[in-house]
């Protein structure tokens, strides 16, 4: 038992170390690639007017853009290690202050959409698997194909029109005030995100459950006289493994893929900021968002693996031995 928990601790530590390494590589790759792209943030700050060389030089010095690449990267890295994410060139504010609220909003949006996705997809997927081949199964399966292809912008507009303009149930756009109002504002965009993803999660849930139901052990359990309910529970428990794996990816995808919905619903989240910061070459902002997204994705993967351990004792044994 003691050996097991030590093993578990080692597993977590190794994974965390790997995550840090991944973040480091990602930050370097993004920093390097951004450097290679043409364009000059100082020039962008000055707008279309042909800039005066001294002004340009002064701004470049102010943001350390005149230093060699390595030095810029290292001073950025040193700053990050000291908890300073740098200074946004475009907004003239610290990056931490700039992205904190937006990160919260994007997390809330992704979280809510995740919950909606599960609420829609899991019951339908499991139900369809238990009644494979039935008219209900067929109907939902066809709807899922449409759902996968439904563009989020179109769904968003439809929701705004129906829920906001016609029924006046939800606000049409905007962040709302922190708290209850915020969540209320996030419902339509979260549904929009959930509709596309639910179709996928539905498909994979149905597949996973079907897969288990056809395993030998289920047939065996049935023949041993276990009740319908008991065999189903057994199958569901085992089907959870592939489902949980993909749910981790689904959340990560949600967190990194909110941009279209943010723009449609006039939300000030990370997605829109990332896109404009890349074209502006506001490198500190891009770096911070990259790190944050990569960290969320890596930590989600870790959480998924830990969930595995809870669900499946066999995996626990392998991981900790």
């Amino acid at each position: 038992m003691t050996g097991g928990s030590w093993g578990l601790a080692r597993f977590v530590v190794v994974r965390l170390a790997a995550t840090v390494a991944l973040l480091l590589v990602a930050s370097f790759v993004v920093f390097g690639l951004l450097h290679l792209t043409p364009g000059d943030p100082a020039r962008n700050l000055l707008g279309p007017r042909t800039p005066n060389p001294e002004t340009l030089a002064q701004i470049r010095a102010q943001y350390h853009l005149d230093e060699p690449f390595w030095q810029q990267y290292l001073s950025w890295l040193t700053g990050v290690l000291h908890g300073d994410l740098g200074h946004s060139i475009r907004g003239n504010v610290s990056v931490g202050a700039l992205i904190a609220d937006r990160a919260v909003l994007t997390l809330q949006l992704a979280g809510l959409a995740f919950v909606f996705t599960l609420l829609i997809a899991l019951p339908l997927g499991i139900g369809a698997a238990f009644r494979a081949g039935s008219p209900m199964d067929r109907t939902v399966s066809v709807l899922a194909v449409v759902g996968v292809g439904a563009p989020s912008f179109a769904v968003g507009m439809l929701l705004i029109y129906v829920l906001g303009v016609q029924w006046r149930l939800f606000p049409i756009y905007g962040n709302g005030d922190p708290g209850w109002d915020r969540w209320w504002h996030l419902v339509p965009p979260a549904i929009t995100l959930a509709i596309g993803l639910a179709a996928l999660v539905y498909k994979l849930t149905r597949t996973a459950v079907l897969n288990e139901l056809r395993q030998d052990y289920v047939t065996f359990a049935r023949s041993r006289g276990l009740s319908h309910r008991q065999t189903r529970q057994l199958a569901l428990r085992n089907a959870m493994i592939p489902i949980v794996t993909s749910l981790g990816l689904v959340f990560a995808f949600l967190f990194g893929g909110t941009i279209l919905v943010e723009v449609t619903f006039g939300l000030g989240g990370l997605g829109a900021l990332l896109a404009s910061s890349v074209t502006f070459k506001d490198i500190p902002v891009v770096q911070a968002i990259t790190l944050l997204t990569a960290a969320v994705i890596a930590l989600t993967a870790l959480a998924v693996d830990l969930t595995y351990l809870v669900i499946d004792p066999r995996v626990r044994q392998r991981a900790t031995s």
Partner: protein
Amino acid sequence: MTSLAGLGPADLVDPDDRARRRVPLIPVLCGIPLVAVLFCALFSGWLVPDAAKGDIYSARLPAGSPGHLFGTDQVGRDILQMSIAGARTAIIGPVVIALGSMLIGLLLGTLAGYRGGVVDLLLSKYADLLLALPSTLIALVVAGLVDGGYWATVAVLILLFSPTDIRMIRGATLSQATRPYIESARVLGLSSRRIMFRHLVPNVLNVALTTMLLNVAFALVSMSALSFLGLGIAPGQPDWGRQLSDGRDLLSINAAASIVPGVLLIVTATAINLLGDWWQERAGVEA
């Protein structure tokens, strides 16, 4: 960017095709529009040679105007002709993307699955890295580096699709590599390259084909979504995604300008998707 990186057909496959009656209705129903689109794509230069030419004096005509069944766009191009010619970019790019990313997937995925060890580790870390970065970021940065353009978009999507394909093929290879026939090939002293290309690859191809069909549909939608980054088809060239977005501003004047390419896009994507599903089930692809 619709590709949910990391998931693939293997996760979505109905493991038991006996569960459904195989009615050849689906391939027929999906085949008709696809053949039509393919025909337009191949022969658009001959069917509508002047699709990209417009006349500003007949700009913004509503649908049903004489000589312009679906009206014209902002610069006076005929919507019908543009939509026929638009099949070309709609089909060619996604097919190249699916082929390209699958080629990478086959090469690196079989390598990783078969060789294991350091190669496997490096390749899976590469896939992790690509999956961890926001796809918008990758697309924008690559757009800046290679200066936009249709083929640049294709390249970006190959890059974005490849980690999923690598994982898929790696998984399929792993499940094959432990099978008795590979073992016996080894025992027989066949070189590892020969084992890989003569035995493994053909068995993995089934998975590859299914993934590719799904990828074509994903790529079709993704390509149009990327055009906002300045990545994609040049303005004025016939392309469904482009027409759709340009046409949005014309809704009150000529709604057909966006509805026609929009419907074509949705029908094509759905047809390919359904065909992919059907193939999966028929072939009984396994994880």
